[in-house]
């Protein structure tokens, strides 16, 4: 591979963005985005797990027998997710109560498996670490955008703080708190991002 680290970073971040390009890891995207604080913890978990599991899988890539590689990868990922789970439980027990099951579900988050299969299994450890990290950031960006829209509209707060002069203009969009709001928001974000990136591709 002759790519520079910078190239790999931006490729994983934008051109192959896990959420709107490859449509992976949608499940957790939607469930945690009604409050920004939850989203930030979830993003931390995903970035941590993608980066380190890509690194470890790439270190072991020549020792893992082909036939059982899925199981081995799942085990590696699961051990990192367990660390994140325990860490969040210790740092923010209140948040953990809400996002707990979804943190566990990072194991089956297809972004991590996808990067492990598509990139880490063929590339050197350090490059894989960058790739995993960038994929995690790409995922987090979309999540944070969605959460920044859903929280003010649904609860009238931002990171838990009340919006200024709320009673004058703010009206609750109940739908933003509920699941359908998440689906609509993700659809709109995907639409914008895809429309934008097809436009830039045409220019090239």
């Amino acid at each position, binding site marked *: 591979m002759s790519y520079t680290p910078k190239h790999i970073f931006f490729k994983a971040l934008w051109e192959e963005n896990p959420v709107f390009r490859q449509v992976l890891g949608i499940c957790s995207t939607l469930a945690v985005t009604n409050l920004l604080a939850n989203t930030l913890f979830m993003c931390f978990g995903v970035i941590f797990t993608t980066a380190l599991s890509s690194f470890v899988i790439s270190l072991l890539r020549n020792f893992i027998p082909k036939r059982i590689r899925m199981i081995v990868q799942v085990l590696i990922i699961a051990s990192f997710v367990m660390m994140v789970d325990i860490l969040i439980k210790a740092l923010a027990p209140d948040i953990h109560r809400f996002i707990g099951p979804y943190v566990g579900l990072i194991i089956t988050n297809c972004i991590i498996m996808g990067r492990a299969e598509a990139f880490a299994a063929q590339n050197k450890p350090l490059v894989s670490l960058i790739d995993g990290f960038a994929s995690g950031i790409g995922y987090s960006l979309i999540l944070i955008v969605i959460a920044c829209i859903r929280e003010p509209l649904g609860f009238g707060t931002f990171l838990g703080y009340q919006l200024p002069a709320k009673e004058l203009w703010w009206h609750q969009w109940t739908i933003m708190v509920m699941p359908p709001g998440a689906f609509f928001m993700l659809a709109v974000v*995907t639409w914008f991002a895809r429309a934008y990136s097809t436009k830039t591709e045409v220019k090239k």
Partner: protein
Amino acid sequence: MAAPLDGNSFATIVLVFISAAFTDNILLARFLGMCSCLGVSKKVDTSIGLGAAVIFVTASTAALNYLVYTHLLVPLHLEYLRLITFIMVIAAFVQFVEMVVERFSPTLYNALGIFLPLITVNCAILGISLFMLNKPYGFFETFIFGLGGGFGWFFAITLLGGIREKINETVLPKGLAGPGITLIIIGILSLAFVGFSGMIKI
């Protein structure tokens, strides 16, 4: 809110099933199993195939994981190992089913074959196992909970498959085609399922 669940009365079982399948629909209210759902739901018959496989696996693994959790992890104080244990049980179960089906029923294997590996990484399965820990259910209710959850997923993906078959024939704005429009459809379906919420609370 948790109604006392006494024994295996028929009414309890029906309630658990309906609440898992409709009010708490795993796909539309809990957002689980979206990845494979978006990938597979292009046609009704593939949706039905994957849906059926999911029903079977969720019901069995929920019951298995319940047994493993209550009789192995809790007595040994190893609850923090639950994630890794559950995913191992699921992966092993799926592998086992694949081998059994291949040996005894090649026709069924051909019908379900490609869907089985997809199931290991379907978050709905692991999700059901994790959510059941928060419920006051016994063994049999857990099995029904898994069955209901699987059925809810099956129901949602089949509906989605039917709608997508029609959508394929329409003209859409460029960025919206593919995942965009599918997400909007799921949003509308999910809005319909919100109507079920509050009907039953267990």
